Protein backbone atom coordinates (compact mmCIF):
# COMPACT_ATOMS: atom_id res chain seq x y z
CA UNK A 1 0.00 0.00 0.00
CA UNK A 2 2.91 2.32 0.84
CA UNK A 3 4.28 1.74 -2.65
CA UNK A 4 1.14 3.10 -4.34
CA UNK A 5 2.09 6.83 -4.28
CA UNK A 6 5.53 5.94 -5.65
CA UNK A 7 4.00 3.88 -8.47
CA UNK A 8 1.59 6.72 -9.28
CA UNK A 9 4.46 9.18 -9.37
CA UNK A 10 6.42 6.94 -11.73
CA UNK A 11 3.37 6.57 -13.98
CA UNK A 12 2.92 10.34 -13.99
CA UNK A 13 6.57 10.86 -14.94
CA UNK A 14 6.31 8.30 -17.72
CA UNK A 15 3.16 9.93 -19.08
CA UNK A 16 4.81 13.34 -18.96
CA UNK A 17 7.89 12.04 -20.77
CA UNK A 18 5.85 10.48 -23.54
CA UNK A 19 4.06 13.80 -23.99
CA UNK A 20 7.42 15.49 -24.67
CA UNK A 21 8.24 16.38 -28.24
CA UNK A 22 10.31 13.86 -30.18
CA UNK A 23 11.62 16.45 -32.60
CA UNK A 24 12.09 20.20 -32.71
CA UNK A 25 11.77 21.71 -36.18
CA UNK A 26 13.13 25.21 -36.78
CA UNK A 27 12.68 27.40 -39.80
CA UNK A 28 15.95 29.29 -40.27
CA UNK A 29 16.83 32.38 -42.34
CA UNK A 30 20.09 32.73 -44.23
CA UNK A 31 20.58 29.00 -44.65
CA UNK A 32 22.28 28.92 -48.06
CA UNK A 33 25.77 27.50 -47.55
CA UNK A 34 26.52 24.03 -46.17
CA UNK A 35 30.10 24.96 -45.27
CA UNK A 36 28.92 27.90 -43.15
CA UNK A 37 26.10 25.84 -41.62
CA UNK A 38 28.54 23.39 -39.99
CA UNK A 39 28.32 25.52 -36.86
CA UNK A 40 24.61 24.80 -36.48
CA UNK A 41 25.19 21.10 -35.95
CA UNK A 42 28.15 21.77 -33.64
CA UNK A 43 26.15 24.19 -31.48
CA UNK A 44 23.06 21.96 -31.23
CA UNK A 45 24.98 18.79 -30.45
CA UNK A 46 26.36 20.49 -27.33
CA UNK A 47 22.96 20.09 -25.65
CA UNK A 48 22.68 16.87 -23.60
CA UNK A 49 19.07 16.61 -24.83
CA UNK A 50 20.14 16.39 -28.49
CA UNK A 51 20.07 12.91 -29.99
CA UNK A 52 20.47 13.91 -33.64
CA UNK A 53 20.48 16.95 -35.93
CA UNK A 54 19.21 17.29 -39.49
CA UNK A 55 19.84 20.35 -41.66
CA UNK A 56 18.13 21.06 -44.98
CA UNK A 57 19.15 24.04 -47.08
CA UNK A 58 16.32 23.33 -49.52
CA UNK A 59 13.62 23.49 -46.83
CA UNK A 60 15.48 26.08 -44.69
CA UNK A 61 14.95 23.64 -41.86
CA UNK A 62 16.97 22.56 -38.85
CA UNK A 63 15.54 19.58 -36.95
CA UNK A 64 16.72 18.31 -33.58
CA UNK A 65 15.82 14.83 -32.35
CA UNK A 66 15.42 14.89 -28.58
CA UNK A 67 16.44 12.21 -26.14
CA UNK A 68 13.55 10.57 -24.30
CA UNK A 69 11.81 12.92 -21.92
CA UNK A 70 14.17 15.82 -22.58
CA UNK A 71 13.72 19.21 -24.18
CA UNK A 72 15.69 22.37 -25.06
CA UNK A 73 14.13 25.75 -24.20
CA UNK A 74 13.35 28.04 -27.14
CA UNK A 75 15.71 30.73 -25.83
CA UNK A 76 18.58 28.22 -25.83
CA UNK A 77 17.74 27.10 -29.36
CA UNK A 78 17.68 30.69 -30.61
CA UNK A 79 20.98 31.42 -28.87
CA UNK A 80 22.58 28.33 -30.44
CA UNK A 81 21.48 29.37 -33.92
CA UNK A 82 22.66 32.95 -33.31
CA UNK A 83 26.04 31.57 -32.22
CA UNK A 84 26.16 29.65 -35.48
CA UNK A 85 25.45 32.88 -37.39
CA UNK A 86 21.77 32.36 -38.27
CA UNK A 87 18.33 33.61 -37.35
CA UNK A 88 15.47 31.38 -36.20
CA UNK A 89 12.12 32.28 -37.73
CA UNK A 90 9.92 29.69 -36.03
CA UNK A 91 10.18 26.74 -33.66
CA UNK A 92 7.78 23.82 -33.69
CA UNK A 93 7.73 20.71 -31.51
CA UNK A 94 6.33 17.55 -33.03
CA UNK A 95 6.10 13.84 -32.33
CA UNK A 96 7.52 13.07 -35.78
CA UNK A 97 10.55 10.79 -35.46
CA UNK A 98 13.73 12.22 -36.98
CA UNK A 99 13.83 9.35 -39.50
CA UNK A 100 10.43 10.47 -40.80
CA UNK A 101 11.71 14.06 -41.06
CA UNK A 102 14.70 12.80 -43.08
CA UNK A 103 12.38 10.82 -45.35
CA UNK A 104 10.09 13.84 -45.82
CA UNK A 105 13.10 15.99 -46.80
CA UNK A 106 14.27 13.29 -49.20
CA UNK A 107 10.85 13.18 -50.85
CA UNK A 108 10.75 16.98 -51.08
CA UNK A 109 14.02 17.18 -53.02
CA UNK A 110 13.48 18.92 -56.37
Amino acid at each position, binding site marked *: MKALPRILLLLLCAASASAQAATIEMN*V*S*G*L*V*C*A*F*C*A*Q*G*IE*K*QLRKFPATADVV*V*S*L*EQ*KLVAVALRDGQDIPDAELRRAL*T*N*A*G*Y*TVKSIERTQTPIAAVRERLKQA*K*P
Partner: protein
Amino acid sequence: MSRWFIALGGAFALVGSMSAMAKPIAFAGGYTVMAEYGAGTMEELQFFYAPRYDLSFGGGYLKLNSDERPETDNLTYARLNYLAHRWNLEDAQASIFVWGGLGSATGNTFSGTVLAENAGAQADYETRRVYASFKTDLQRSSEFSHRIDTLQLGLAPYKHEYGGVATWLLVQAREYTGGIHRGAETALLVRLFKDGIWVEAGITDGGKLQAMAMVNF
Protein backbone atom coordinates in the same frame (compact mmCIF):
# COMPACT_ATOMS: atom_id res chain seq x y z
CA MET B 1 42.53 35.31 -73.24
CA SER B 2 41.74 38.58 -71.44
CA ARG B 3 38.69 39.13 -73.67
CA TRP B 4 37.42 35.73 -72.70
CA PHE B 5 37.82 36.57 -69.02
CA ILE B 6 36.05 39.89 -69.49
CA ALA B 7 33.21 38.22 -71.42
CA LEU B 8 32.76 35.59 -68.74
CA GLY B 9 32.86 38.23 -66.00
CA GLY B 10 30.24 40.23 -67.90
CA ALA B 11 28.04 37.16 -68.22
CA PHE B 12 28.21 36.60 -64.49
CA ALA B 13 27.37 40.24 -63.87
CA LEU B 14 24.43 39.99 -66.26
CA VAL B 15 22.83 37.22 -64.28
CA GLY B 16 23.41 39.30 -61.18
CA SER B 17 25.82 36.88 -59.63
CA MET B 18 28.84 37.48 -57.52
CA SER B 19 30.78 34.92 -55.57
CA ALA B 20 31.54 34.64 -51.87
CA MET B 21 34.91 34.47 -50.27
CA ALA B 22 36.29 32.68 -47.27
CA LYS B 23 34.97 34.16 -44.06
CA PRO B 24 37.36 35.03 -41.21
CA ILE B 25 34.81 34.00 -38.55
CA ALA B 26 33.33 30.51 -38.53
CA PHE B 27 30.93 30.24 -35.57
CA ALA B 28 31.12 30.70 -31.81
CA GLY B 29 33.75 28.30 -30.50
CA GLY B 30 34.98 27.50 -34.00
CA TYR B 31 38.45 27.51 -35.54
CA THR B 32 39.36 28.55 -39.07
CA VAL B 33 42.58 27.70 -40.90
CA MET B 34 43.13 29.27 -44.33
CA ALA B 35 45.98 28.96 -46.78
CA GLU B 36 46.26 30.77 -50.11
CA TYR B 37 48.70 30.68 -52.98
CA GLY B 38 48.21 33.72 -55.18
CA ALA B 39 49.88 33.20 -58.54
CA GLY B 40 53.40 33.57 -57.20
CA THR B 41 52.83 37.11 -55.95
CA MET B 42 51.29 36.29 -52.57
CA GLU B 43 51.24 33.37 -50.14
CA GLU B 44 49.23 33.57 -46.94
CA LEU B 45 48.48 31.32 -44.00
CA GLN B 46 45.92 32.31 -41.35
CA PHE B 47 44.54 30.77 -38.17
CA PHE B 48 41.60 32.21 -36.22
CA TYR B 49 39.52 31.26 -33.20
CA ALA B 50 36.06 32.72 -32.70
CA PRO B 51 34.93 33.04 -29.06
CA ARG B 52 31.73 34.63 -30.38
CA TYR B 53 29.82 34.39 -33.63
CA ASP B 54 30.79 37.97 -34.50
CA LEU B 55 34.41 38.03 -33.33
CA SER B 56 37.57 36.07 -34.01
CA PHE B 57 41.23 36.54 -33.32
CA GLY B 58 44.38 34.85 -34.45
CA GLY B 59 47.32 35.42 -36.67
CA GLY B 60 48.80 35.01 -40.05
CA TYR B 61 51.83 34.97 -42.25
CA LEU B 62 51.93 36.77 -45.59
CA LYS B 63 54.67 36.69 -48.19
CA LEU B 64 54.49 39.21 -51.03
CA ASN B 65 56.66 38.75 -54.12
CA SER B 66 56.72 41.58 -56.61
CA ASP B 67 56.64 40.51 -60.23
CA GLU B 68 57.61 44.06 -61.25
CA ARG B 69 60.84 44.39 -59.33
CA PRO B 70 63.09 42.29 -57.05
CA GLU B 71 61.09 42.88 -53.85
CA THR B 72 59.94 40.32 -51.32
CA ASP B 73 58.25 41.19 -48.02
CA ASN B 74 57.46 38.76 -45.23
CA LEU B 75 54.82 39.72 -42.69
CA THR B 76 53.72 38.03 -39.51
CA TYR B 77 50.71 39.51 -37.76
CA ALA B 78 48.12 39.15 -35.02
CA ARG B 79 44.63 40.13 -36.11
CA LEU B 80 41.13 40.76 -34.76
CA ASN B 81 38.14 40.15 -37.06
CA TYR B 82 34.68 41.56 -36.44
CA LEU B 83 31.39 40.75 -38.13
CA ALA B 84 30.05 44.28 -38.47
CA HIS B 85 26.70 43.20 -39.84
CA ARG B 86 24.93 40.13 -41.17
CA TRP B 87 21.71 39.91 -43.09
CA ASN B 88 20.01 36.53 -42.79
CA LEU B 89 17.47 36.76 -45.58
CA GLU B 90 14.88 34.27 -46.77
CA ASP B 91 17.02 32.91 -49.60
CA ALA B 92 20.33 34.67 -49.10
CA GLN B 93 22.95 35.67 -46.57
CA ALA B 94 25.11 38.79 -46.65
CA SER B 95 27.88 39.86 -44.30
CA ILE B 96 30.28 42.70 -43.69
CA PHE B 97 33.54 41.94 -41.88
CA VAL B 98 36.22 44.36 -40.77
CA TRP B 99 39.62 43.60 -39.25
CA GLY B 100 42.77 45.13 -37.95
CA GLY B 101 46.05 43.93 -36.60
CA LEU B 102 49.69 44.52 -35.87
CA GLY B 103 52.76 42.56 -36.72
CA SER B 104 56.31 42.62 -37.93
CA ALA B 105 57.82 42.62 -41.37
CA THR B 106 61.11 41.87 -42.99
CA GLY B 107 62.08 42.39 -46.61
CA ASN B 108 64.92 42.35 -49.08
CA THR B 109 64.60 46.07 -49.85
CA PHE B 110 65.19 47.22 -46.27
CA SER B 111 67.16 46.02 -43.31
CA GLY B 112 65.94 44.72 -39.98
CA THR B 113 62.41 44.16 -38.78
CA VAL B 114 59.77 46.86 -38.88
CA LEU B 115 56.34 47.24 -37.29
CA ALA B 116 53.53 46.45 -39.74
CA GLU B 117 49.89 47.43 -39.53
CA ASN B 118 47.06 45.50 -41.10
CA ALA B 119 43.52 46.65 -41.82
CA GLY B 120 40.81 45.41 -44.11
CA ALA B 121 37.18 44.73 -44.84
CA GLN B 122 35.06 42.24 -46.70
CA ALA B 123 31.49 42.33 -47.97
CA ASP B 124 29.81 39.24 -49.33
CA TYR B 125 26.44 38.13 -50.56
CA GLU B 126 25.34 34.62 -51.44
CA THR B 127 22.38 32.54 -52.37
CA ARG B 128 22.53 28.83 -53.18
CA ARG B 129 23.29 29.63 -56.82
CA VAL B 130 25.07 32.99 -56.90
CA TYR B 131 27.79 34.50 -54.78
CA ALA B 132 29.66 37.81 -54.65
CA SER B 133 32.37 39.19 -52.48
CA PHE B 134 34.76 42.07 -52.31
CA LYS B 135 37.75 42.17 -49.99
CA THR B 136 40.33 44.87 -49.40
CA ASP B 137 43.40 44.16 -47.28
CA LEU B 138 46.07 46.72 -46.43
CA GLN B 139 49.52 45.91 -45.10
CA ARG B 140 51.50 49.00 -44.17
CA SER B 141 54.83 49.81 -42.57
CA SER B 142 57.48 52.53 -42.66
CA GLU B 143 59.04 50.67 -45.62
CA PHE B 144 56.05 49.72 -47.77
CA SER B 145 52.32 49.99 -48.29
CA HIS B 146 50.61 47.10 -50.02
CA ARG B 147 46.90 46.79 -50.60
CA ILE B 148 45.24 43.78 -52.19
CA ASP B 149 41.69 44.25 -53.51
CA THR B 150 39.88 41.08 -54.53
CA LEU B 151 36.51 40.72 -56.21
CA GLN B 152 34.95 37.30 -56.68
CA LEU B 153 31.83 36.48 -58.67
CA GLY B 154 30.48 32.97 -58.70
CA LEU B 155 27.78 30.72 -59.99
CA ALA B 156 26.85 27.26 -58.75
CA PRO B 157 25.87 24.79 -61.47
CA TYR B 158 23.47 23.12 -59.03
CA LYS B 159 22.05 23.81 -55.56
CA HIS B 160 24.14 21.93 -53.07
CA GLU B 161 22.65 20.36 -49.97
CA TYR B 162 23.98 20.01 -46.43
CA GLY B 163 26.32 17.01 -46.26
CA GLY B 164 26.89 16.98 -50.02
CA VAL B 165 29.60 18.39 -52.23
CA ALA B 166 29.17 22.01 -53.31
CA THR B 167 30.65 23.20 -56.59
CA TRP B 168 31.17 26.83 -57.57
CA LEU B 169 32.60 28.37 -60.73
CA LEU B 170 34.21 31.71 -60.05
CA VAL B 171 35.80 34.68 -61.71
CA GLN B 172 38.28 36.52 -59.54
CA ALA B 173 39.73 39.94 -60.23
CA ARG B 174 42.55 41.15 -58.03
CA GLU B 175 44.50 44.37 -57.94
CA TYR B 176 47.70 44.99 -56.01
CA THR B 177 49.00 48.39 -55.06
CA GLY B 178 52.53 49.03 -53.87
CA GLY B 179 54.44 47.55 -56.79
CA ILE B 180 53.54 43.89 -56.40
CA HIS B 181 51.74 43.44 -59.71
CA ARG B 182 50.85 45.86 -62.48
CA GLY B 183 47.19 46.04 -63.45
CA ALA B 184 44.33 43.78 -62.53
CA GLU B 185 44.93 40.06 -62.38
CA THR B 186 41.98 37.87 -63.26
CA ALA B 187 41.53 34.19 -62.58
CA LEU B 188 39.03 31.45 -63.29
CA LEU B 189 38.47 29.21 -60.30
CA VAL B 190 36.63 26.06 -59.30
CA ARG B 191 35.61 25.83 -55.67
CA LEU B 192 34.54 22.64 -53.92
CA PHE B 193 33.45 22.18 -50.35
CA LYS B 194 32.01 19.45 -48.24
CA ASP B 195 31.37 19.49 -44.50
CA GLY B 196 34.13 21.68 -43.01
CA ILE B 197 36.63 21.42 -45.86
CA TRP B 198 36.89 23.94 -48.68
CA VAL B 199 39.31 23.96 -51.60
CA GLU B 200 39.50 26.13 -54.68
CA ALA B 201 41.97 26.29 -57.51
CA GLY B 202 42.30 27.84 -60.90
CA ILE B 203 44.46 29.70 -63.31
CA THR B 204 45.15 33.40 -63.77
CA ASP B 205 45.17 35.29 -67.06
CA GLY B 206 48.97 35.05 -66.81
CA GLY B 207 48.76 31.25 -66.74
CA LYS B 208 49.71 30.96 -63.07
CA LEU B 209 48.18 28.86 -60.32
CA GLN B 210 45.72 30.50 -57.92
CA ALA B 211 44.65 28.24 -55.04
CA MET B 212 43.06 28.42 -51.61
CA ALA B 213 42.13 25.90 -48.92
CA MET B 214 40.18 26.38 -45.72
CA VAL B 215 39.10 24.19 -42.83
CA ASN B 216 36.52 25.04 -40.17
CA PHE B 217 36.28 22.97 -37.01
